[in-house]
Structure formats: structure tokens, C-alpha cells
């Protein structure tokens, strides 16, 4: 039985890092416990996806554990009421609303450098023309990934397309009700988890 358990663990979890629960049981099971601690995780999804909800659920799970989290909201699209409805403790959330992508990167760098944050989410979801991801150099994500590793902070990047390149330890592609591993250091790509979400209430 122990040998079987070891075999299962070897197949599911990347070594050397702990895991933080994503707040979604199915996704936790898919990832062998949750998002890797101290790593850059890319959550990619178009308009017809649940990328933001996946990130907010991870933030909510972190605040439930008593951790402090940060949401760098470049598109200025964060809705506190629906996030609170999803279980996010707003008093433990640092919400930053930069006006440019450059400021968003600088703010993320600062927050990661401060240390002590359980999860930091950088929201780069938006129109292609407005976001201009080409503006973000790959060295920015290298620097942010290093900062996250030093601070042992799980760093989520929410975007409509891939932006972090090879610096992401895990890339998830979100659909309307499913999340798939697209690229990962430690997992085989293509594995999918079905997540059931409820619509936010009008209140």
C-alpha cells in the first residue's frame, strides 16, 4: 500500500515545492494538491472561460487559510462584491489598480518583493490592442518568477493568451466549465478537470 502511495505521489506532484489549494476540489485533484508554492502559474482563457473565477477561488482559499493576498488589476475589472460572494476575505486583499501595463509589472514586482503574500494575482486580461503584451519583456516575467520563488508566493497571471512563456511552471487553459493543463513542469499536458461554477447572484 505504501509502495502504491509512493507511486501515485511520484506521478502527480512536482518535487521540491509545496502545494496551495486552488479552492476547487477537482482542480486540486488534477494538480496533486493545488498550485505549486513559489511558482508562476499562468491561467489562460478567453471571454468564454472561467479564468478569473479560478484565480479568485485560489485567492479566496488563501484568505481562508489566513494568508494575505494581492490582486494587481490592470484592466480595472475586479468586482469586490462578486469576489466576496465567492468567499474572498476583502480585508486580507490588497487591490492595486495600475493604469498601464508597465505600472502593473512594477507594482507586482513590489508586492512580490515585500514577501509574506500567499498568492499574488496579476490580471492582464483585456483587449489585445489595449494590453499590448509585446510591451512586456520576457525578462520581466523572469524577474517576477524569481521574486515569487524567493518570497514563496504563488504568482498567478490571468491573461487571454500566453504571456509568461517558459517562465510559467504551470499553464492552465480554462474553458467555460473545465480547466486543462496545457504545459507543466511535472505533469503531463492535456489532463482536464471539470469545474462546476454557479452564476453570481444579483444583490
Amino acid at each position: 500500500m505504501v509502495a502504491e502511495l509512493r507511486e501515485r505521489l511520484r506521478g502527480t506532484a512536482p518535487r521540491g515545492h509545496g502545494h496551495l489549494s486552488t479552492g476547487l476540489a477537482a482542480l486540486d485533484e488534477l494538480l496533486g494538491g493545488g498550485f505549486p508554492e513559489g511558482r508562476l502559474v499562468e491561467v489562460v482563457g478567453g471571454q468564454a472561460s472561467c479564468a478569473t473565477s479560478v484565480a479568485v477561488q485560489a485567492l479566496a482559499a488563501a484568505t481562508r487559510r489566513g494568508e494575505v493576498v494581492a490582486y494587481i488589476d490592470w484592466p480595472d475589472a475586479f468586482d469586490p462584491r462578486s469576489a466576496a460572494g465567492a468567499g474572498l476575505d476583502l480585508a486580507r486583499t490588497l487591490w492595486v489598480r495600475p493604469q498601464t501595463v508597465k505600472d502593473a509589472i512594477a507594482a507586482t514586482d513590489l508586492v512580490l518583493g515585500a514577501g509574506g503574500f500567499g498568492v499574488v494575482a496579476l490580471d492582464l486580461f483585456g483587449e489585445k490592442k489595449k494590453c499590448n503584451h509585446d510591451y512586456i519583456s520576457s525578462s520581466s516575467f523572469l524577474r517576477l518568477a524569481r521574486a515569487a520563488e524567493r518570497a514563496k508566493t504563488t504568482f498567478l497571471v490571468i491573461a487571454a493568451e500566453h504571456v509568461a512563456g517558459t517562465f510559467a511552471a504551470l499553464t492552465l487553459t480554462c474553458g467555460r466549465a473545465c480547466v486543462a493543463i496545457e504545459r507543466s513542469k511535472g505533469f503531463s499536458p492535456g489532463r482536464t478537470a471539470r469545474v462546476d461554477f454557479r452564476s453570481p447572484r444579483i444583490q
Partner: protein
Amino acid sequence: MNAARRIACLLGESPAAQGATSACALMSDVAHGFSPRVEVCEVDSCVFVDITGLQRLFESEEQIVRAIRHVVEKMGIVMRVGVGGGKAIAHIFAEGEKRNHRGTESGRSEERSDFENRTSPQTSLSLRLCGFSLSSEKERLAGLPIRLLRPSDDVAKVLCQWGLRTIGDLARLPRKEIEARLGREGILLHRLACAEDDAPLVPTPAPETFREVVDFDFGLSNLEPLAFVMRGMLDRLAERLECRGLAASDVRVVLTLADRRRHERTLSLAAPTRDAKTLLDLIRLDLVEHPPDAEIEAIAIDLIARPPRPAQLGLFEPKGPSPDRLATTLARLSAIVGRERFGAPALVDSHRPEAFALVPFGEERRNHARDPSSRLCQTCGHRDKSVLVSRQCRAGTELQRSDEKIYLGNVSSLPNSLSLRLCGFSSSLSSVLRRERTTQAIAIDALRARIADLRGPFRLVGEWWAATSFARDYYDATLCDGSVIRLYRDIVANTWVIDGLIH
């Protein structure tokens, strides 16, 4: 004379070069770190420390003085130390140490060796620390020049005429004869010469504000050289705070400008700190945000000291960001994105779904812990507090001071609830919507998509008692590409507004 009493005199060696006030204040802070009974003598630029009883902590007086000297000299202040049974005797010994170093050319070489002694703590201090030898204080005083007793000019002239050169010469004379010729001052001098000193030590209260002042020869118009000067000032202030076991809770920077005006800035720190780098960052960021409008001719930094907040970590709670680094981070964020564009979101007690508040991050949790009067109302979950309310208006956020209550009660949360992304299309959509005849589908030009399914309406009416009343019919619309948007029709204005994307 109280034989058990031991007083140490710390004498700044070069007050003019070091800044007399600063050196004296620094020595005072160091002394307060060793003993609660400290007297500061600004006139002589010296500090008297009652070290009686410190032998319980240190093996000998020599070690006490070595420890004091080590801390003071680490701050760049050169000083002389003398220890005696009274203040005046200790001062004479400290002055005598100075005399030994400055008297002759041989004294200069001795000064060099003295410097080497200071840099190597293992070397003997017996040459420099007068009053530590086994011989009595009276015998040690006997060899010192009589001017160290600091007689008045008239008395000094008489003593010179008598041929007295050393303190020992005076001590050997009969006291009654001295009294008959020199009066009361003569008795006092003779008592000192005989090592009889019972002047009480009057403790000076420890200061709660720490101040450093620097005057510039030329006006500064750039922040970089000012930061360079501030770094040194803050380093010294931080060391003084450390000596006292305190930390700065508030910082006040006063810049004297070329036109004699004063530019004052006061910073309240999120948590008491004595990290010079943190303080410098905070001051620099504040000055970048609020620059002076003329050249700077002088700068004064005041630190209001408080005991540092003990870090009480929860057994079952993860460690959060340290208060020092968090304060610096928030200040830097303020410089990057603006003070009004970050914080902790809070819900406002309003029926409008888009209403929210932005409160300073970390303050809510601190208030929970510290301020019992601001506890939540258990029944309604409200707290009366004026906050900066940011009305949600994505096209142009307007900030206003309001007395609106923040809702801090538990929001009923649903597990796995989807989040709403608020869109930028807050403008009226009446001109871009057209309802098709056959279905409930609506073509929205702004999104370039056709609505496949429309759920609703969910009517929301509120504030009907006020001029800001609203009535809306909300819909959740599934577009052809599978995405779901939330939009509403404003019944009063008869317009359509896209609220957000359910993402």
C-alpha cells in the same frame, strides 16, 4: 563622599567637529541604554552616568566603560571617559585623559596608539581610563594639573602665585588655612583635591523625540544629494533608537528653504520601525510626491519614538508581510499608481451593486485588534467611520469623502461562485442594441456577438426615497461564443448598460 557611588563621565572629544548637540544627545541615548540615571550637561558637552550596581551585569568597571565606548565609537563619536566617586571627579579624570593625549608631541604618538587601542578591544585600557587603578582616587588626582579643578580666574592666579602646579599640591595644604584665604571656593577646591565629591546626580529624563539637524553651505535643489545627507542622519537616529530599544512611529521632516520658508512633512508609519533604509525610502517617496518649491538650506528630522510592536504570530496562522516592508511597499505603490488606486476593497452599505470602498490596506485588521470602540455591530455589521469612498465609475473614477458606512458583515458566499469582470462599456447602449422580432436575442455591436440565450429579467429597485433612485432589469446573456455577460436596462433612463462579463 559616598564610597559606593560610581559615576562615569562621557566627554565628547571634538564637539565642534562632530556637532555638539548631536554628539551629546547621542551619548545620552547610549548612556540611557546602560543606566536609567543619566545627567546631561549641555554646557560642558558631557554626560554623567550612574554606573553604581552595574557590576552585577559586568565583571568590572573597565568592562562597563569598554561597552559604552564601543557603542559610542561605533557611531563615529570620539569621546573620553572618566570614572569616579562623584561627577566632578569623573569629569576631572576624563579631562585628564584628554590632557595626556594632547599635551606634547609624545602625547600625539600616544594618541595614535590610543586610537589603535580603541580599535582593538583586547588591548589594555588602563592608560586611558583614569580612575581604574588600584591606587586611591586621591593619589591619582594628585598628579593631575590644578587647572582641571576649574578654579575662577582670581583663585587660579592666587594658586599660581603660591606655586601650586598639581592637585596634589593643593590637597597637602591645611583646609582651614585655605578657607581663611580663599573662602568658600577654596574649600570646594580642596575637597575635590581630596577626592571628596558629594554633588548629587540629577537625572535628565530620557527624550522621546530624536532630532538631527544639518545646515548646508549651499542650497540643494536636487533630491539625490539630500537623500545622501538624510541617510547619514537616519543612520545616526536609528542607532540612537536602538540604544534605547525604541522605534520611530512618526517622522517629521522640516526643510528650511532659501526664501526662509519652512517645508514640513509628517509621516505616520504603519508600524514603528528603526530601519534607516525604510525610513529613507518613505521620506524620499513623500518628497518626490510633495517636492519643495525652493532650494533647501537646512534639514531637520524628528522621530517620535514608541516601543516597537512585538510580533505576535499566531500558531495556526501563516506569517504575513512584515509591517516595515509593507509600509515601504505601500509608499512605493503610492508613488507608482497613486494613493487612491490601491488598498483593501470594502463593500458599502448600499443597494447599488457597483458601490464599493477602498480602505487603507491592513488598517481594518489593525483596528479590529486595537480599537475596541470600533468593533462591529453584531446585529447589522456596520461600523461608523468616515472613509474614502470610491464610486465605481469605470469611465472616470471620482473620489469623494463620505460618511457612508462600510459593510463589514459576512457576505453570503456561495461555493464555486463565478466572478464578474466589470466591463468598460458603462455607456448607454440604447443606440447599439436592436431587439429582433422572432427571438429574445440581442445583437450587441460593442461585443460583435449575437446573444443566444437571455435569462432574466431580475429587477433591482433601490433608493426610491432619494433623488438617486434607480430601477434596473438585469439579464444574464449567453453569447454565441459561449461567454456570458451581465447587462441591465435602466428603467428610468430607458438605456441598456453592460455590467460585466461573468468570467
